[in-house]
C-alpha cells in the first residue's frame, strides 16, 4: 500500500511538473505582456514593470524561478490585477467554487444513483423510459443553456432564488442545480448499465433461489455490487464540474476560480491562467488518487490483492 501510494504520488508530481513546464513555455510564445492593457508608458516605467514581473531575465532563468515558485505555491503576480499575487487571487476564489462544485457533485451523484437504479430495477417500463429521458436530456443540454434558463425562469420570473450576487446558501442553489445536471445524468446512465449487469448475474440468481424477495435482493446484493464501480466515474465527473463551473459561475456571478479562469483567458492574464491550470490539474490528480484508494478500500477483491502487492 505504501509502495503504491509512493508510486502514485511520484506520478502526480511528474504530471504537475510536465504541466507547469508546458504551460510556462506556451505562455512565453504568447503575444501580450502585462503592458498590453496599459496606456502609454515611459521606457523607465516599462523597465520598472518588467523588473517587477521578472521579465528582464533570460527565459531559462525565468523558468527556474517560476518552477521554484510553483513548488512553494507561488504562481507570480497577476497581469490583470497588478500587485495581486496569483496564489492569493486563486485562494480567495477557491471557496465559492468548492461550495457549488461540491454541492453540485453530491446532489448530482445522489439523485443520479436513485434515477439509475430505478431505471434498472424497473427496466423496460415507463419508469425506465422516464429515467432514460431525464438522463439523456441532462447529458445533452449544455450547462450554459441550462444555467441561463434556470436563471431566467427560477430566478427572474418566479423569484424563488436570488441571482447575480453571492452571499449565503440561497445564492448557491441555482448554480448548484446547473452544475448537478451533468453528474446526475452520467451517474444515472452508468448506474443503470451497472445494475442491469449485476441483476442478470449468477449470484443474483442464487439470491432468488434462496427465497430473497425483490427488495432484499436489491438492497443486500444488487446495490452494493453496482455502487462500487460508480467510484471510478467520480474523476471524470470532477472534470465535468470544472468545465461547467467556468460558465455557470460566470452566468450567476459566483466569485470562483471558474469565472476567474474565463476572465483571465479573455484578458490574456497569463500568470493567472498558468496558476489556475496547475491548480485544476492538482485538484483532479488528488480526486483521482482518492477515488482509486477508496475503490481499493471498498472492493474486497482489490483489497486483498493490494495487500499482496
Amino acid at each position, binding site marked *: 500500500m505504501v509502495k503504491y501510494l509512493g508510486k502514485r504520488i511520484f506520478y*502526480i508530481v511528474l*504530471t504537475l511538473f510536465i504541466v507547469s513546464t508546458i504551460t510556462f513555455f*506556451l505562455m512565453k510564445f*504568447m503575444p501580450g505582456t502585462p503592458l498590453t492593457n496599459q496606456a502609454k508608458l515611459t521606457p523607465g516605467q516599462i523597465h520598472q514593470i518588467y523588473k517587477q514581473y521578472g521579465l528582464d531575465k533570460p527565459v531559462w532563468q525565468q523558468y527556474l524561478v517560476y518552477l521554484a515558485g510553483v513548488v512553494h505555491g507561488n504562481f507570480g503576480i497577476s497581469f490583470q490585477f497588478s500587485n495581486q499575487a496569483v496564489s492569493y487571487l486563486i485562494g480567495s476564489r477557491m471557496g465559492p467554487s468548492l461550495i457549488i462544485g461540491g454541492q453540485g457533485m453530491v446532489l448530482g451523484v445522489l439523485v443520479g444513483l436513485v434515477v439509475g437504479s430505478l431505471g434498472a430495477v424497473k*427496466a423496460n417500463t415507463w419508469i425506465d423510459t422516464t429515467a432514460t429521458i431525464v438522463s*439523456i436530456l441532462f*447529458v445533452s*443540454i*449544455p450547462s450554459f443553456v441550462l444555467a441561463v434558463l434556470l436563471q431566467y425562469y427560477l430566478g427572474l420570473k418566479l423569484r424563488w432564488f436570488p441571482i447575480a450576487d453571492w452571499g449565503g446558501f440561497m445564492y448557491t442553489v441555482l448554480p448548484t442545480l446547473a452544475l448537478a445536471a451533468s453528474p446526475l445524468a452520467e451517474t444515472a446512465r452508468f448506474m443503470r448499465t451497472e445494475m442491469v449487469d449485476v441483476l442478470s448475474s449468477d449470484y443474483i440468481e442464487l439470491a432468488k433461489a434462496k427465497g430473497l424477495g425483490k427488495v432484499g435482493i436489491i438492497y443486500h446484493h444488487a446495490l452494493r455490487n453496482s455502487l462500487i464501480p460508480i467510484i471510478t466515474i467520480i474523476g471524470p465527473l470532477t472534470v465535468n464540474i470544472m468545465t461547467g463551473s467556468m*460558465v455557470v459561475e460566470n452566468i450567476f456571478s459566483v466569485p470562483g476560480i471558474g469565472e476567474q479562469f474565463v476572465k483571465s483567458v479573455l484578458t490574456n492574464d497569463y500568470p493567472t491562467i498558468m496558476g489556475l491550470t496547475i491548480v485544476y490539474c492538482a485538484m483532479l490528480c488528488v480526486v483521482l488518487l482518492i477515488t482509486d484508494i477508496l475503490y481499493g478500500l471498498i472492493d474486497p477483491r482489490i483489497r486483498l490483492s493490494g495487500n499482496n502487492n
Partner: protein
Amino acid sequence: MADNAKPISAGDFKPVSAADRGKLDSEKISAPSLTFLQDSWRRLRKNRAAMICLVILIILFILAFGSGFFETHNPNATNPNLANLPPKIPGIDINGFNGTIEQSGTRVNAYVQAHAGNAYYILGTDYLGRDLFSRILYGTRISLEIALIASFFDLAFGVVYGIVSGWMGGRVDTIMQRIIEIMLSIPNLVVMVLLILVLKPGMSAIIYSIAITSWINMARLVRAQTLELKNQEFILAARALGESSWKISFKHLLPNLSSVIIINLMFTIPTAIFFEAFLSYIGIGISAPQASLGTLINDGQKNFQFLPYQMWYPAIVLSVLMIAFNILGDGLRDSFDPKGRE
C-alpha cells in the same frame, strides 16, 4: 398418448431408409441466420427513438451542408434597420411566428415598425439585423464539421494508438499508458484553452484542440479490447499460422473492435460539438462575424428577457443535435450488446 386420429397401418412400421431420413432435414434452421452487423441493424431498426434521431441527424446534415439552397439570407449580412425582428413566416398567424412582438403590454407588428416591406425572416433577426435562420444553419454546419473532424481523429489516431499500445504490450504499452494517464489528469477544456490562446481563436485552433483531446477515450477503450482479443484462440491461431501483425490487425482485430469503435465514436461526437459551442460561447471559439451555435446562444442570452427566440432557437438546435447523437449512440450500444434491453 399422442393423437390417434389417423389409423395406423401395418405399413407404417417399415424402417425408414437412410436417404429418406436425410429428407427429414434435422439441420434445417427455422430462424433466419443473421450476421453480427445484420442482427445489430435489426435491433437498431426496432429502436424507434434511435431511428427517429437518425432521421433527424440526416435532415440536419442535408440542411446544414446544403445551406446554400436553404439559406434565405446571407448569414453574415448586417442590416441595422431590420435588427431584432421577431420570427415571421408568411401565411401563419400565431403569436411568435407572425412578426408581432409584445411592447409595453400591447402586441405590435415589428416588421411594420421597421418598414421592412415584404421582407420576412422565418426565425427573426439578431441585434445587427442578420437572419437568424441562416446563421443557425451556418452554425449547425460548423458543429457538424467539428463532429466529422473529431471522428476522423478518433479513428485515425485513437484507434491506432489503442491497437498499437494493446498489441505491442510491454514497455511500449507502459509508456503509451503513462502518456494517456498524464493527459487524463489535465481537464480537457484547460488543454483546449491553452492551445487556442497560443494559436489565436478560430476554426483551426478549435480543430487542433479537439484533435489533441478527443482521441484519448477511444485509445483507452480500443487498447482494453485489444488486450482481451489478443489472447483469444482465433488470434493465437492466426499468429501460429505466421500471419503478419498488419494482416492480423486488419483481418481479425478491426472487425472485432468495430462495435467498441462505433459506440465510442457516437459519444465522442456530442462531446466535440459541446466543446466547440462552449468555447465559442465564452468567446474564444469561432470569432465574429462567423456564426456558431455557441456564439449565437451567447448573443441571444443578452436579449433573452425581451427577445427569447434569439437564444431559444440556437439552443434548441444545439440540444437536439446533442440529444440525437446521444440517443443514437445509446441505441447502437444496445443493439451491439443487447444484454440490457429487450
